[in-house]
């Protein structure tokens, strides 16, 4: 008997607005506890929420980028439950009429494309944080995060395995960062997800009972939690028991999911329309303006890089898939003409350095100005490609200017043909046996002579000139 897994994701994306969803409180991360909290965030008696239009515009961008229906009239509801970090005793969310309706997104797993449908994306306010380990026997509450705007993106249960789930999460992350609506910083909790997993027999038409795994915030943990959960559910089903509908937590230390609360223990959230907020109406003009100013997305960038910059499609895809990579590419290309060379370096040496240090391009010391200059110095033959590598490494360490590095280290390429010829002749003269062997048919020895010239010039010789000169002298 074979089992089939059905997965749906609810991704919480923290929108990068300056102020909160219903107050003027700041949304910046990492401040002293309870310093970014105003009267509204605190839920003081008598305060009222005012919806942040900027958050709506960001949500609409997401909707447009995923070909979704935009509800030009959307409403807010209250989700009632008690928790110390929920100041009002209810969360304001969009239950009945979300700003973004049905849409879809393309994912790719092992070279295969698949469309995942998105049920809805709605705005809601985040809660604060309960801090259990700071005060002995007491719980602290930090409300800095309370009221931060979240876009909750709900997928259809169309994801078949952990790999697809990760690909889906990555695709969402890519789109929200390109749209500039979220910083995509998972370590700071800017993106988190709840995963619904169920297992059924392949020929069953109905879905199995699902478990919801709450609040996972890394690609690795999503994959592990799902795989653990699939195994757990299959084991239960194969032993003849049935899966219980419940909420579970993923413990990354033990790599297991644990029951948090069962369906019976679940809150009755008593949703009802929030009487403090009128429906938010987005005018046709407002919508058009957002549409007209929608940032370019990875697919469009990829196409443009192939068509306008003559990149091959694999290079174009790699560069277009990361916002910082694309920004670096476009930034450098605006200052230098050799876009092919820019792309080669980005996909080759720069990517290698990023992988080695496990950082994102924006965390490196490389600027697009300095990068463009490096490409220029290769193009105008000031330095060879080989020297350029060492210059890049130097930039990586110090962030120093390309020309300053070249000058201080005396790396300018030797272009003087007569000088190169003199050096080549000396090497030929000093190595008669190799010359004889080469002339006798050992073609591979050509590289030996090139290497010797390079060694003599400390790598500064123009390799093309060296090749031509040696060919002539050895013929």
């Amino acid at each position, binding site marked *: 008997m074979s089992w089939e897994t059905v997965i749906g994701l609810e991704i919480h994306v923290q929108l990068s607005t300056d102020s909160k969803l219903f107050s003027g409180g700041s949304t910046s991360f990492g401040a002293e506890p309870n310093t970014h909290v105003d*009267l509204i965030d*605190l*839920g*003081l*008696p*008598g*305060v*009222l*929420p*005012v*919806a942040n239009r900027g958050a709506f515009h960001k949500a609409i961008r997401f909707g447009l980028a995923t070909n979704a229906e935009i509800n030009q009239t959307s409403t807010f509801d*209250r989700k*009632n439950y*008690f928790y*110390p970090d929920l*100041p*009002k*005793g*209810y969360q304001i969310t969009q239950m009945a009429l979300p700003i973004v309706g049905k849409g879809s997104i393309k994912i790719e797993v092992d070279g295969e494309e698949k469309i995942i449908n998105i049920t809805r994306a709605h705005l809601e306010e985040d809660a604060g944080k309960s801090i259990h380990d700071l005060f002995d026997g007491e*719980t602290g*509450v930090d409300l800095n995060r309370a009221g931060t705007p979240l876009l909750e993106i709900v997928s259809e249960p169309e994801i078949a395995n952990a790999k697809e789930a990760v690909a889906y999460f990555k695709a969402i992350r890519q789109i929200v960062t390109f749209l500039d609506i979220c910083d995509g910083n998972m370590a700071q909790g800017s993106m988190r997800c709840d995963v619904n997993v169920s297992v059924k027999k392949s020929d069953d038409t109905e879905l199995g009972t699902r478990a919801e795994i709450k609040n996972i915030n890394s690609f690795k943990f999503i994959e592990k939690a799902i795989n653990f959960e699939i195994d757990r559910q299959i084991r239960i089903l194969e032993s003849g028991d049935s899966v219980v509908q419940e909420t579970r937590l993923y413990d990354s230390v033990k790599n297991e999911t644990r029951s948090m609360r069962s369906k019976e223990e679940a809150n*009755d959230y*008593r*949703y*009802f329309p929030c*009487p*403090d*907020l*009128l429906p938010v109406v987005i005018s046709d003009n407002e919508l058009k303006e957002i549409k007209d100013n929608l940032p370019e997305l990875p697919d469009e960038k990829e196409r443009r890089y192939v068509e306008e910059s003559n990149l091959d499609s694999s290079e174009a895809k790699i560069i277009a898939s990361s916002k910082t990579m694309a920004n670096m590419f476009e930034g450098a290309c605006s200052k230098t003409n050799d876009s092919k060379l820019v792309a080669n370096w980005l996909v080759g040496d720069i990517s290698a350095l990023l992988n080695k240090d496990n950082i994102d391009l924006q965390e490196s010391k490389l600027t697009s100005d300095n990068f463009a200059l490096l490409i220029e110095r290769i193009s105008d033959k000031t330095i060879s490609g080989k020297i350029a590598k060492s210059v890049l490494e130097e930039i990586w360490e110090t962030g120093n200017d390309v020309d300053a590095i070249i000058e201080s280290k005396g790396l300018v390429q030797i272009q003087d043909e007569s000088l190169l010829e003199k050096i080549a002749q000396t090497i030929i003269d000093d190595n008669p046996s190799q010359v004889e062997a080469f002339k006798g048919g050992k073609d591979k020895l050509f590289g030996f002579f090139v290497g010797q010239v390079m060694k003599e010039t400390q790598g500064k010789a123009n390799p093309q000139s060296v090749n031509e000169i040696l060919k002539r002298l050895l013929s």
Partner: protein
Amino acid sequence: MSVQYKTIKELKNMLNEKEISYTELIQETFLNIKNNSELNAFITLNEEESLKKANNLDNSPGSGSLNGIPIAQKDLFCTKDLKTTCGSNMLSNFVPPYSATVIENLENAGCISVGKTNMDEFAMGSSNETSFYGNVQNPWGENLVPGGSSGGSAAAIAAGIVPAASGTDTGGSIRQPASLCGISGLKPTYGRISRWGMIAFASSLDQAGPMARTAEDCALLLNEMCSHDEKDTTSIDEAVPDFTENLNSSIKGLKIGLVKEFDLSKLDNNVVKVFEESKKHYESLGAEFIEISLPNISLSVPTYYVVAPAECSSNLSRFDGVKFGKRCDNPKDLEELYIKTRSEGFGDEVKRRILIGSYVLSAGFYDAYYKKAQQVRRLIKNDFDSAFKNVDIIMSPTTRGAAFEVGSKGDDPIQMYLEDLFTIPANLAGLPAMSIPNGMVDSKPIGLQLIGNFLDESRLLQAAHNFQISTDWHLKTPTGNKS
């Protein structure tokens, strides 16, 4: 010179003519408050600050339209640095760090907030008996309730202590106590006055409004209370007219609707008699009466008692002992913190409504109760919309009778809920409505309710003022007719 029972208009003249200083006015106001302390109309006094403000005005009179006028603020409005209890034990220690927009508006106009008035706990009640701070006495009789929930405000005016008070009206909480205390009170159109800083009971029904001796004074107060407020998205973005402008215009030809479905035959004969006399009086002023039908009006009370508790159950969730207000002693865990804090902090009526509200919103019951109630509410609003195509205002008694005795309805919440039979429909429809004194029943005052069309407060005030310049019911005081 006594300032007791003086109207705002009279006090303004006295101040302008320097018959009295700002300081003397406030000093005498506090003397009257203390002489009437048995009324229990105030929860918190603001004497020092008030005298300071009066002294400042004596030194340099400002340009506010209500300079130096003492006003009592219902203890439901947040007042910066001044304790705000909402009539509840839960907020017995709550000192807000900010003021409600309506408080700011009134104080910017020069009003001096002399104290915070007693009220039914969280505005839930029609007799002021649910206040944690004890019931308020109606100045018209030791054992009589003043009505509620704005009972402290109404009693303070009826006793002539202050000429003005703020109130709030969710199902009749301005009009019913105004009727029972023999004063004038107006609930404006929903959204006319910002709700920012008003401690919410039922957000879609709550509306602040003025309470005073006369309709004219209500107009003076309303002029300052209204403003479009960006902090309240339900606040109406409409120009605020000068509500005093048309007060003296004749109401000849005014079409007044009488609601067919309000069965007055069930009321006390004397109440009906008073109402009939007022009709005659309006006829003598040139108004004409038209019978109108509001077919769904009988559903108002049940609809209200689904919608209001539902909203209150959610609005009052923030009182959990975590951030402000009361916290129980030594809870053993989080659940006990919630249970003990809320059990000790809330009174029975508040608990009853939280339970009703939680029930009607719960999964499986939402459609049958809350959703249905919202649909009925829409029908009631439509009924009014149709009626106002044919009439300018609608008239009815404000209450089913005059003030009742303390404790007389204590055990039967339904009887108490029916107190608001005539007042609730205007809240459900969001329409302006006011109550003015129009007679006496058993030596107790009783009120006439006028309901207006959307944003048509001016017409209500005009009709009320026309009535008051030709009658003397509003001049009656518990100690006899005002000179």
